[in-house]
């Protein structure tokens, strides 16, 4: 079973592939890769190799699925960035990570009501509200970006 132990890690790749795409295609891809990189693959025929891979995929799938949701750490890839999140992190250098900070000089942004954030930024932008540099920063942001940031910060618990 030496070949099998070499194949196992590769099969993890194909497990995912098999879920998303055609299993036959995934098997073919793994087989080609193994043939190209593993001298041990020469000890079996092409069809035997593919059959072995197919079986192992199914084995691994069976092993993988029940455990995938019981692990305390998320196994699935993290969520994609929310709208406004990438922009919101550029505020953190002054306003603290995620808008939370223990610093009296800067406005805490976490949990700020959406409309308050939007109005404040628009007032900075059109000069209705005096500022040191927030007018400059607000000038670089569109209405949509300001709204997205407002929604992001509103959902952060202060």
């Amino acid at each position: 079973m030496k070949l099998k132990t070499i194949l196992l890690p590769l099969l993890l790749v194909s497990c995912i592939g098999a879920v998303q795409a055609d299993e036959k295609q995934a098997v073919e891809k793994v087989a080609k890769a193994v043939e190209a990189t593993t001298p041990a693959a020469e000890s079996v025929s092409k069809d035997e190799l593919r059959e072995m891979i197919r079986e192992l995929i199914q084995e691994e799938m069976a092993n993988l699925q029940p455990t995938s949701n019981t692990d305390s750490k998320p196994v699935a890839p993290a969520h994609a960035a929310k709208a406004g999140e990438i922009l919101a992190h550029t505020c953190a250098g002054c306003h603290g990570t995620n808008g939370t900070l223990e610093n009296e000089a800067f406005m805490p942004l976490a949990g700020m009501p959406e409309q308050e954030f939007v109005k404040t930024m628009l007032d900075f932008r059109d000069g209705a509200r005096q500022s040191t540099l927030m007018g400059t920063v607000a000038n670089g942001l569109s209405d949509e970006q300001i709204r997205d940031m407002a929604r992001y910060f509103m959902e952060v618990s202060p």
Partner: protein
Amino acid sequence: MSLNRREFLGLLGATALAGAFPIRSAFAGAQAHVVIIGGGVGGATTAKYLRLFDPAIKVTLIEKNPIYIRPYGSTEVLTGHIGMEDLHVTYDALQSKYGVNVIIDEVTGFDPDKRNVSLKGGRKVSYDKLVVSPGIELLYDKLAGYSQALAESKIPSGWIPGTQTQLLADQLKALPKGGTFLMVAPPNPYRCPPGPYERPALVAEWLQKHNPTAKVIIADPKDKFVTDQTMMLGWNRLYGFPMPKEFLEGIPDSVEIQQHSQPGILEWIPAKDGGTPVSVDAETMTVTTEGGKIKADVINIVPAMRAGKIASAMGLTDDKGWCPNQRKTFESTLHPHVHVIGDACHADAMPKSGFSANTQAKSLARALVEILAGREAPTPSWENTCYALAGSDYGLYVADVFELAEADNKIQRVGKFNRYLRLDATPAQIRMGAVYQQAWMKSFTEDCFA
């Protein structure tokens, strides 16, 4: 399994599979490993935000010094406003709060094909993605007569804070009555754009109190600098600096500009007036510039610079000494899977500042999370704010929002509006600028390291 994950990676890397499947998905429950070289602002922020965005990613930070000495605000040590120890930042929070694996060691080898780095201590660390945030290397020898040995013993630079900072602080205190403090400003590009002008301003303020007949001279190889007009207005108000004609443009009539018939405590010699330094003589404490000789009691030289040494050793720099990269993810154009951020990278309109490194780190952390999850890196967004002081209670700044220009793949400023403190800023706004500058030292350090 007889193959470990590393060996498997090697196998995968040799096949078409590497590109055919998301690497992260390929290992199901196994962790992706991001290794970061350099524990300054860029590296620390990347480490923290990677773990914030996705705790399933293993993050290792390699840094040679167990304590980080922050460069931003380090001029305040010269005037005794803070002590050296106030610049010290530890990696404790990154380890305990965010689970970053911090290794205090030096990188001595790099195998981009096998994707690992070797450490002086003898171990090898493998990575899926490598982040290099090495800061700067000071090129002391570029100025004739100057050297690192001289900087450590008699004519400090202090642009990377440490023993030279303390030496400069001691020299300032020992400046003879009526003596001269000379700042030799650096050529472009350099770290901390307003810094070489903030430092002489704070020195001038200190001298006004402790040595009022002393003088501060800035010899500059440039004719302008970031925040020049607003900084000079501060000098004009605080140190009797006569505004040069070319910097009066655009100042509203309502703004009071002081007329000084006598030269003040602070003098700036731009390139066009012969300010460009040519050589330094430590024996006579004289800097020869294109305009003549300047003798001084304390000389502070900010030399030319390039990307931190490790970047050149790893083959990540170009002929200009900085690191070329794909702007969207800062991936090196010289080595795949290696991303370079901070002062060391080419970043077009973004200045070489801590704030730039901090927002670059966040956009990179997000891009790596997405790439490792098999998704596309999202559209990045960056910001920079450089606060600066013309005096302890006189704050000013340059601030910008940046975007990626898809057409030429360059980082550009968003919009064309005023980036600086208003020329007609009220005394309250100027004072608040200084309050924010001080508060920023704390909030910024927290955002990067805590």
